[in-house]
């Protein structure tokens, strides 16, 4: 919240759209603004009435550089918008930088998402430190319902809950040092390590002391919100991402055209609906694909599945759990993750050499 917990004193808040961006149809701007207000109306007793003339509580406008409030914008990118907390005159007013390109989707800055964030300010919310919250200061695109538990707790602390409607907030961002932390997928990407968990990924760079947490959608808007498995095939500079029965390919941070493809194209039987973990072993040129209690071996050179598979994980990796959530090969060792446990497995000695907590991989 802002200092002194600034808020509107009545629940009927008015707004007026003073001018429109030429980037979108007028109707699309109206819809984005109305939908943004509805997001807050759904979780509070607030109602929002549109005015067509005169002074409204929340005056909405598009402007560039210095646009009348001595709080200038900065041209393309950088600052996208700002809003003032509840109060008289400029209080509640919301300004969008017209030097940005506004869109209805993920092509450029999504007006609905930015408007919903700014209206959070206009209603009395300050910035959140939770990267999964809508009120986090940095822009990221995501689909679906935009509010997290943190956003809802914040707004309801000011206005109380909506007496009739119930909505399901997005879960908070996973905490890297949670002792019960598990991973969805782990892969290398050009010398970095990428760890997928829920809607987020951590990026571990050899020169960064701290892992960096980002929304998957923020970097790859067309990837699903949940990743099951991932592996890097460095010979082709490709990273493969699995979610359900589909797989995507990345070249660096860019998505490769022609994907998603069905995982069954790799030669997996149709009965396999998810790949739990995948890892490429450079010494053998094979990629191991894990699903439930079994694994398959895929030959990257011939692009065929090796015969004699599936085999039992428990039988071939003694000392391991019978299922794996994620796997990665580093410095001659296979790291298997299952729930909150990490198994460090020597591929040459064929045995587990260390068992530690999953979160130790994130320096916890």
């Amino acid at each position, binding site marked *: 919240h802002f200092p002194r917990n600034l808020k509107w004193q009545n629940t009927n808040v008015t707004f007026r759209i003073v001018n429109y961006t030429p980037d979108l149809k007028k109707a699309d701007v109206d819809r984005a603004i109305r939908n943004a207000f509805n997001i807050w109306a759904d979780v509070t007793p607030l109602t929002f009435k549109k005015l067509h003339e005169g002074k409204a509580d929340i005056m909405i406008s598009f402007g560039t550089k210095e646009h009348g409030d001595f709080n200038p914008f900065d041209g393309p990118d950088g600052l996208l918008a700002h809003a003032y*907390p509840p109060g008289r005159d400029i209080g509640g007013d919301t300004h969008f930088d017209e030097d940005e390109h506004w869109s209805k989707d993920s092509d450029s800055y999504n007006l609905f998402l930015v408007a919903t964030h700014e209206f959070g300010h206009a209603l009395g919310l*300050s*910035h959140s430190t939770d990267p999964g919250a809508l009120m986090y200061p*940095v*822009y990221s695109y995501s689909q679906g319902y935009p509010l997290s538990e943190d956003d809802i707790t914040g707004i309801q602390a000011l206005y109380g809950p909506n007496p009739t409607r119930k909505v399901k907030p997005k879960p908070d961002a996973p905490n890297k040092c949670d002792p019960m932390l598990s991973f969805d997928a782990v892969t290398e990407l050009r010398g970095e390590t990428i760890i997928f968990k829920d809607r987020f990924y951590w990026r571990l760079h050899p020169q*960064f002391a701290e892992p*960096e*947490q980002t929304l998957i959608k923020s970097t790859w808007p067309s990837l699903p919100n949940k990743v099951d498995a991932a592996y890097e095939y460095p010979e082709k500079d490709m990273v493969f991402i699995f979610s359900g029965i589909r797989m995507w390919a990345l070249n660096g941070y860019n998505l490769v055209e022609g994907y998603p493809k069905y995982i069954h194209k790799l030669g997996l039987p149709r009965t396999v609906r998810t790949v739990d973990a995948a890892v490429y072993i450079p010494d053998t040129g094979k990629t191991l694909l894990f699903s439930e209690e079994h694994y398959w071996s895929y030959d990257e050179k011939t692009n065929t599945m090796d015969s004699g598979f599936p085999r039992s994980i428990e039988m071939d990796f003694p000392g391991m759990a019978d299922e794996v959530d994620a796997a990665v090969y580093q410095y001659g060792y296979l790291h298997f993750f299952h729930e909150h446990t990490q198994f460090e497995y020597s591929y040459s000695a064929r045995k587990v050499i260390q068992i530690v907590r999953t979160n130790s991989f994130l320096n916890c």
Partner: protein
Amino acid sequence: MPLSSLEETDKRLLAEKYLRRFYNLQAGLQGTKTHRSSDAMQAKIREMQSFFNLQVTGSLDANTLELMSMARCGVPDVGEYN
């Protein structure tokens, strides 16, 4: 002292602008290379790193600079609202 490279100057200017706007770094202090201005800048960098759950070093490391250059909302993150 060696002169800082152009790239380093750019990074410092970016950081000063960012901290002035979002962390209330006082204008005027950072322009002169005094002990006090350097301390003020470091304290604000620490504040920003702490807000974003970065490693709190007080220095302009790659993570910090990357975050400073991301598209964002123009409302200050912490402190009294102006």
